[in-house]
């Protein structure tokens, strides 16, 4: 009886030890993945910052204005404003 109990206890101890290590390794893997992703997010957000800065640099008025000029565009002028009633009469004429 006692021998049976001891054998069972040993088996249970072994099983829980294996289980513990399996869970522990899983946790470590998830932690690794987490830190990999965190550093990837950090890297990507740095890339985004750089790309935003580059886009702003390419969009700066100093550069866009001559380019828009080549496409025949002009600065906004006061005459381009219309009131809703003017729009209405324009449509009726058409």
């Amino acid at each position, binding site marked *: 009886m006692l021998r049976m109990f001891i054998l069972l206890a040993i088996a249970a101890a072994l099983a829980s030890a294996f289980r513990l290590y399996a869970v522990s390794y899983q946790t470590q893997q998830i*932690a690794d993945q987490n830190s990999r992703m965190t550093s990837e997010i950090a890297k990507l957000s740095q890339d985004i910052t750089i790309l935003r800065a580059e886009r702003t640099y390419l969009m*700066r008025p*100093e550069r866009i204005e001559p380019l828009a000029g080549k496409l025949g565009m002009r600065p*906004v002028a*006061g*005459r*381009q*404003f219309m009131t809703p009633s003017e729009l209405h009469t324009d449509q009726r004429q058409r």
Partner: protein
Amino acid sequence: MPAADPNTTRSRALRVVMVYGILGLGFSSVGVQLVRLGLAERAIGKTSISRPLAKTYARPDIVDRNGNIFATDVVMQSLFADPANLLSANETLATLNTVLPGIDTAHLRSVLANRKRRFVWLRRGLSPAMAQRIHDLGLPGLDFKSEPKRSYPQGRIAGHLIGHVNIDNKGTAGIEHYIDEHVGIEHVVATPQGRRRALHLTIDLPAQAALEAELAGAMRRYSSTAASGVVLDVDTGAVRAAASLPTADPGNPLEAQHLRFLDRLKRGTYELGSIFKTVTIAMALDNRKITTRTKFDVRQPIELSRRFTISDHQPADRPLSVTEIFVRSSNVGAGLIALKVGGAEQRRFLAKLGLLKAIKTDAGPTAAPLVPSSWGRSETVTIAYGHGLAVAPLQFAAAGAALVNGGHAVAPRFVKRSSSIATKRAPLRRVISARTSADIRRLMRLNVTSPIGSGRRADVEGYEVGGKTGTADRASTGGYDGDAVIASFFAVFPISKPRFVVLVTLHDPKPTGSSKKRSASLNAAPTAGRIIKRVAPLLGVVPKLR
């Protein structure tokens, strides 16, 4: 074998129990340790190195009112050396010099020779490509640290306003300094994590670019040495565009120290000439000393001393009304009006308008006005037409806004209220009556619509511009520079419901064409007109075309 002595048997059993106990304790401690190691966070591999020298700061972005970036932190590589691990300081520097020219070899050689030091910056803020080339040299004892560096993708646009940061990314001037003082920067040792809320300015990037382009055009057209301009919301004091040319590069703090790149809007004070007559007349109207119809005999010059008399360029042959004095810009008239009010009252009024003390702005204080030490009859007369009191143009624009917005004081602001520390709107402080303000608006509009008005070249179809010219002799050490003038135009639009004031100042403009004149009506006024024509639609002011 002798029969077991009961005593011996008992002591043997005790020994067995003791051995079991010790073994059990040992195994269970091993087991507990295993469980602890299995469960504990793996903090074992982490090391923390504190480098007191290698600190830097992460800063929030600076963006315009619509989110266009003016300044942002970009992660860059910074190269440092650990002298203890260098093979040879001389050789390392020689090799490094092949890809990184311009390092201070002589200085670094002595620093790197000291092997007790463990950390020496070689170059901060390297591009990734350059960092790779240095890495490829395979020099031992060199390493990189990534750290945030300020970058200004708009280049020189609004450079004076943005200010500068130092090598550690701390703000030293302009809005960058404001961030350190009021918004907060974050001390970082390694790469910064997470994004900070951007600081929104009141500036409108397209309007700012248009203002700078028009000022640059005016400088070319009139061969002017410098120029400044500001577009300011008359009610809130929010500055939509502010420029001083030549512009400053936020990325180059050294260059900005040269006098040539002085911020002529905030940090320079000038006698602004006849635009001050607006203030003089507002003062007298508000004190009920005159109405716009009161007549003054301006035919005789005002004699201030035996050597110094005030006269007009084209003396009138009859007494002029206040309206005529304003439109014809009579110095004698302005002087007589100021004398009627009196010097003490004039001083009090200018103080109330905030023209006698430096004002604080989000981008630092303005240069302190040059106020005469004694305020006698001569000062009263000369200040009446804008000489003898030098103020920063931004300060005048803010005071001028109060004259046309119905009469309440405004403080120029560069940071949008939602991101500013002062979220509460300050109670309005009245400086002149609404009636006086309406009179001033009418006079300013008349100066643009009248065929003899000095501001007629500033008119823009649909935008009801009102304004006043000022042509002042430029002060230089110990008197006036006989030849050079500062031409300015102070404008407000649309006059029926003022939204913005514009103040343009051209330094030392030259006559154009056959004309020999450099008066503001020929240069500053048309420049202000061009600025309003471009900026008003961008700021959403709907013109009255019919």
